[in-house]
């Protein structure tokens, strides 16, 4: 322990000192607080804050931790939840992650979060610690993490800075996730120049637990002990805290801060096992992971969610860097740390488990009923606050928002380029394009099948993981977003993102149950961005209500903006579905020769915002129309036909339309097909190009065994859902043959599809 040597180095700004020196100037502006916010802190405390208190308020009232710009809109996710939607919800929004009942006493917790900015600064560590952070959220609910997913967005594929980000971020995710032994079962990769200075690195984790194992982040029981365990605290991720250097006598600091957070996946793996043993033996009363805002966040949230008070001696924190000041210790974002509340009777048992796993820990203090969070430094009081004011009563802004004036012009500019005459070349161009090309080069760097429970992973529509090895009970997950759709119409864009993720999960054969979201936007101080945000939240909340799937948690990432240019609004939506038995999952590719291929749904002329328009450099008009009733019926058909064995393959139609779906279904197992689209064109009143490239929603292709065709057709008729037989699986002929239009040998299609990423990054 370094208590004696460290404590003497600082000219500690105690509460007493703060009372005596009301006029002492504090660097609140440098720490990111606005003047009105600082005044509010002074009003709450009835005096100026100490340096340590200022550090706590400044990080906890930051946009990232307090959701001060987004809160007023996010309430809709709670307000628009019906009783029916809550039926399977064991823990809703507000905890570290939501928990969903999947039957047989099993529950699942899942959440997606952003780590955008750190990943731009230091791609490898930023992405790695993004995975680490979301996994700790899952552990702190009492669950064993079982899989991760990573929706990624980069700048233009040929921009000189893109390889740095792609290489760093992909190896960071692989390096951390693979070391933890967690399969990476999917995600998305999108290239668009709007993300050049603001790549999006979102990380989703899912964990499994028994109902009785749910743990919440609260500190109850006066006299219970508060313990910090895991890695030591260093200068990681401290942003503006260096301006608090005035509290330090010692100028001989390590090199300039802020320091990048560095992850240690092997320490996290030990932490997972160690926490699960604590849960199994019911050793901890409450637990919280340390992420953004570190100890400030953990102490204030645990205290305000429990009996309201906590007493902590900060010199007990084990340090990696003994020169840290109290304010820095409170703000540090060092990884792989957890805080727990333990009854005095369980202290010895707790220590035994820590020793067994060789995890360092230190007892910081205890729970009180005073309603105050008191933090002392070597016995001197440096923080004395009501923890609610730090954790929950931060500023809330009704930011002004206004519909962008340019939007009418953009929406009026429909895609009108002439259809290409050479459809064969068009399909090849589409399937080789940065967004539609094979992502194998990336996903091959991740473990997808480790642990042996992965039933489906990229490139299938959803990732599928078995939960119960006896019964085959399992889950499916998909994440989706389309920034271009959201740019054209943020309300519909968010609804479309949900619809696609919902459809993907149903396509795999699972029943969609719950939603998590990661809302990536530009600056909330720009009224036009704020309008995009407000519309997106309204759209997502409405669509969740219509589809009957609740949002269980998520994350908001604002200020994804360089100069005056914001990213496209990018609401990433993750949908969780449930299988009674993953053995009946539906893969996305054809396998059996002679099976009939059906197209479900109606195709309209909807090319605005499409991948094809994107390839032609066009972005205008309105995104495809959405009919959530049709989505529900389609999902029901896909889930029922999977359960009753009526289909052998299914693939949803989204970006790239029918052309992409047919190509991917053929390439999945290298089995071709003979396709006829003339009848489809006649029925829907469209030309062959539109049939192949339109991105109309609520569509999927399925392959149906001969023996099941009658039953399948009867079911579609009973549900009054349009379907049309468009072809037959042809295992003899290794080609995608769109009769009367073109024949594409699978080898040629595969070559075009797989060459793009290695060409740029290989």
């Amino acid at each position, binding site marked *: 322990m370094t208590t004696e040597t460290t404590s003497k180095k600082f000219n500690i700004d105690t509460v007493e000192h703060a009372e005596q020196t009301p006029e002492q100037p504090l660097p609140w502006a440098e720490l990111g607080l606005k003047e009105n916010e600082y005044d509010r802190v002074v009003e709450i405390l009835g005096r100026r804050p100490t340096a340590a208190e200022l550090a706590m308020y400044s990080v906890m009232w930051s946009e990232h931790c307090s959701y001060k710009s987004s809160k007023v809109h996010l309430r809709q996710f709670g307000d628009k939840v019906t009783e029916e939607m809550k039926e399977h919800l064991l823990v809703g929004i507000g905890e570290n992650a939501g928990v969903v009942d999947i039957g047989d006493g099993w529950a699942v917790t899942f959440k997606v979060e952003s780590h955008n900015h750190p990943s731009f*600064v*230091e791609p490898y*560590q930023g992405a790695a610690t993004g995975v680490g952070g979301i996994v700790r959220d899952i552990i702190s609910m009492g669950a064993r993490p079982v899989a991760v997913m990573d929706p990624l967005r980069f700048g233009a594929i040929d921009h000189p800075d893109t390889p740095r980000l792609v290489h760093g971020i992909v190896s960071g995710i692989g390096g951390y996730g693979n070391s933890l032994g967690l399969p990476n079962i999917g995600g998305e990769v999108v290239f668009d120049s709007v993300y050049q200075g603001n790549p999006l690195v979102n990380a989703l984790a899912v964990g499994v637990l028994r109902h009785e194992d749910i743990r919440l982040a609260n500190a109850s029981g006066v006299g219970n002990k508060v313990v910090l365990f895991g*890695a030591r605290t*260093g*200068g*990681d991720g401290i942003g503006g805290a260096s301006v608090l250097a005035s509290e330090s006598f010692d100028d001989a600091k*390590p*090199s300039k*801060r802020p*320091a*990048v*957070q*560095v*992850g*240690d996946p*092997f*320490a996290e793996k030990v932490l997972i096992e160690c926490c699960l043993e604590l849960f199994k033996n019911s050793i901890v009363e409450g637990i919280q992971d340390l992420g953004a805002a570190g100890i400030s966040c953990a102490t204030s949230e645990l205290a305000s969610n429990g009996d309201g008070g906590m007493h902590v001696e900060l010199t007990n924190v084990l340090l*990696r*860097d003994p020169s840290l000041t109290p304010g820095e210790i409170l703000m540090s974002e*060092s*990884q792989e740390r957890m805080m727990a509340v333990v009854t005095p009777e369980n202290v010895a048992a707790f220590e035994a488990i820590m020793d067994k796993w*060789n995890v360092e820990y230190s007892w910081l203090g205890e729970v009180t009923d005073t309603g105050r969070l008191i933090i002392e430094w070597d016995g001197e009081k440096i923080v004395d606050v009501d923890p609610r004011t730090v954790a929950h009563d931060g500023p809330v802004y009704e930011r002004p928002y206004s519909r962008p004036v340019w939007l009418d012009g953009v929406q009026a500019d429909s895609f009108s380029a002439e259809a290409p005459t050479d459809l064969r070349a068009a399909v090849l161009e589409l399937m080789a394009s940065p967004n539609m090309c094979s992502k194998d080069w990336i996903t091959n760097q991740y473990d997808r099948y480790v642990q042996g429970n992965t039933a489906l992973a990229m490139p299938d529509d959803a990732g599928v993981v078995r939960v119960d090895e006896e019964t085959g009970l399992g889950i499916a997950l998909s994440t989706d977003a389309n920034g271009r759709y959201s740019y054209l119409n943020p309300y519909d864009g968010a609804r479309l993102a949900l619809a696609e993720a919902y459809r993907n999960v149903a396509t795999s054969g699972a029943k969609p149950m719950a939603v998590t979201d990661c809302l990536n936007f530009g600056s909330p101080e720009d009224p036009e961005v704020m309008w995009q945000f407000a519309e997106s939240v309204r759209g997502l909340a409405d669509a969740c209500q219509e589809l009957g799937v609740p949002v269980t948690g998520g994350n908001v990432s604002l200020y994804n903006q360089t100069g005056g240019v914001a990213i496209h609004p990018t609401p990433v939506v993750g949908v969780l579905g449930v299988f009674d038995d993953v053995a009946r999952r539906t893969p996305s590719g054809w396998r059996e020769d002679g099976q009939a291929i059906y197209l479900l749904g109606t195709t309209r002329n909807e090319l605005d915002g499409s991948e094809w328009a994107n390839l032609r450099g066009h972005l205008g008009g309105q995104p495809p129309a959405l009919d959530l009733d049709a989505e529900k019926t389609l999902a029901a058909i896909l889930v029922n036909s999977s359960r009753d064995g009526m289909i052998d393959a299914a693939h949803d139609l989204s970006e790239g339309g029918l052309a992409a779906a047919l190509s991917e279904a053929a390439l999945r197992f290298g089995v071709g097909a003979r396709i006829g689209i003339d009848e489809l064109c006649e029925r829907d009143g469209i030309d062959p190009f539109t049939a192949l490239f339109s991105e109309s929603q609520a569509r999927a292709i399925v392959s149906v065994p001969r023996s099941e065709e009658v039953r399948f057709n009867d079911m579609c008729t009973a549900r009054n859902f349009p379907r049309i037989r468009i072809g037959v699986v042809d295992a003899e002929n290794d080609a995608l043959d769109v009769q009367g239009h073109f024949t594409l040998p699978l080898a040629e299609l595969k070559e075009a599809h797989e060459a793009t990423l290695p060409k740029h990054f290989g």
Partner: protein
Amino acid sequence: MPRIVVDVMPKPEILDPQGKAIAGALPRLGFTGFAEVRQGKRFELTVEGDVTEEVLDHARNAAATLLSNPVIEDVTRVAVIEDAQ
């Protein structure tokens, strides 16, 4: 041929998981008495011809931009060493 040695260390305030793992292994294998381990890396650049100031500048440049990650690492030495033979 002369060689230029470049030493790169993780910045002092940055977590060094490898160093930490080695620090954990030392006492297990009986090497006690070491308080901390930090692990860096060493590059040897063999030079064609003489090491002029210009060549050294090149090496410093490479050390700062390619051989080290300036966000999390420091270049602690760029020096010429005599050939062992």
